[in-house]
């Protein structure tokens, strides 16, 4: 193979997130190529995964495998996406080993005391094909498989659903609102995506269910036959004082359904949101201030010094195509 293998990782955290990965427009993980970013994705029609046999208090190995399998099913059954998974068996191999096996398992990582779970990749840096991806769940935390949630423990299936989003090539979504905790870190007031980088907290099971932003993201990456011809794209540019705004969080709001689907603007201020239900959408632009910027993007150059703005025109997502590009003007704070 001529391609160089590289590792990158993303993580779901309890309070603050760290992400030294590369995020691309439309919140897909990507590798930078001279010709532009290349989204990373699986190309195999059926992705095989293994479960590590390590158990933790409250979760047996069999329960672990079952919860992860159900989280995979959540993504596999998105009707507008085409991706399939296969449980290949239990293994003693551990996550993060370069062994050509995609392994899910518990590991104790006490130095990562705010990280619930993380996903690593080995990717072909020419094509963006994912060769191997491992997911670990930090066993320094207490885990639960309770259907209704355990207020003292983190819900394994919710975190697995988030990590499998990364496993598929999705980055973090910024659709969410947080507030600072007096003791430090952030508390999530509400999130609009399973791929929001900060956990809803102990006892919460809501993130077992995907939201519109998650569904659009995975469908855009692994489109089912009619997905692209039946949905629309909105693209444009965020400007302040005439210059493009880097790292603005742009959300398309469907006034009929209430669905929120977002992305980030690139360095030149351009953005593209795919997978939209055809029809008019409101466009809301906000600075990345509900989590650390490096949860989403490489921080240098990201502009967070502007006001939340609604574009004054409804923008139409055409059926199977893209709108005429437009500018959203934002004002400095």
């Amino acid at each position: 193979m001529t391609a160089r293998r590289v590792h990158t990782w993303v993580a779901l955290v309890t309070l603050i997130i760290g992400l030294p990965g590369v995020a691309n427009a439309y919140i897909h993980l990507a590798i930078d190529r001279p010709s532009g970013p290349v989204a990373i994705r699986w190309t195999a029609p059926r992705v095989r995964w293994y479960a590590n046999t390590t158990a933790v208090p409250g979760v047996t190995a069999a329960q672990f495998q079952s919860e992860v399998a159900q989280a995979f099913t959540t993504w596999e059954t998105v009707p507008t996406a085409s991706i399939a998974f296969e449980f290949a068996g239990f293994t003693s191999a551990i996550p993060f080993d370069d062994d050509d096996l995609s392994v899910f398992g518990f590991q104790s990582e006490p130095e990562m005391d705010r990280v619930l779970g993380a996903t690593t990749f080995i990717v072909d840096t020419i094509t963006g094909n994912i060769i191997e991806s491992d997911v670990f769940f930090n066993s320094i935390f207490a885990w639960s498989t309770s259907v209704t949630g355990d207020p003292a423990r983190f819900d394994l299936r919710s975190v697995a659903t988030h990590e499998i989003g990364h496993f598929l090539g999705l980055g973090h979504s910024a659709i969410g609102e947080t507030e600072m905790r007096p003791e430090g870190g952030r508390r999530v007031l509400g999130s609009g995506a399973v791929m929001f980088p900060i956990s809803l907290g102990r006892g919460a099971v809501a993130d077992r269910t995907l939201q519109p932003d998650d569904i659009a993201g995975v469908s855009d990456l692994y489109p089912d036959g009619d997905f692209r011809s039946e949905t629309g794209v909105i693209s444009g540019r965020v400007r302040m004082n005439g210059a493009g705004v880097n790292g603005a969080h742009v959300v398309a709001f469907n006034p009929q359904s209430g669905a929120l689907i977002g992305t980030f603007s690139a360095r030149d201020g351009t953005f593209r949101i795919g997978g939209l239900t055809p029809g008019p959408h409101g466009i809301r632009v906000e600075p990345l201030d509900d989590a650390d910027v490096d949860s989403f993007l490489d921080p240098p150059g990201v502009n967070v010094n502007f006001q939340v703005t609604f574009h004054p025109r409804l923008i139409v997502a055409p059926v199977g195509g893209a709108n005429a590009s437009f500018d959203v003007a934002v004002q400095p704070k």
Partner: protein
Amino acid sequence: MNPRTVGFALVAALTVVTPAAAQAPSEPIGRLQVGVGVGWLGGASFGEQPADLRTASGGPYRLFESETDLGAAASFELRVGVGLTPRFGVEGRVARSGPELKASVSSDAEASGTFTISESIDQYVFDGGVVIRLNEFQAMGLLPFVSAGAGYVRQLHEGDSLVEEGQLFYAGGGFTRVLFARPQRFVRAASVRADLRLNVLSLDLEADSSRLQGSLAGSIVFTF
């Protein structure tokens, strides 16, 4: 004079009571009628739709509120019909209007104030139906009628970026007043007409939703 003013003027002309002749002139039966007119298409509400995030309990956290309306607009129409009997007639109509779709956004979690977001739509309606003249209620030269029918709606969003199609059903009524009748001439008669309608509109992209729209129109009709 703008179209809306013309529409109101035509409607007003029908409501002016003039001394009735002993026998008001009537429109010829079985002849082609062509009418042009202007009117006013009432607004319609799409209702409220909040942008909700999901909380730890699974309940909503409101990011902002939104309420969407289709604004009222002037309309232009061309009508073709024929009177089959003194009581019954059939007619077809094409109408164009340019309503504005407006979303009002408020109570944003991070921004104060209310924001209005809008888009212009070109709307075309092709419909057809029956007209029943209520001859027994004719008075002061005004002949009341009721009408009902169905049609096809085509909405072009801004920049023709999206075409929405749908169906329309309507019921309404109004009055006609014959201005003159000259049975031996090419133009055999001319009349003015006022229409008041209630439309039920369903668009294909808005599954499971229909909306009510009132409309008012005045037209001048020539019989050939």
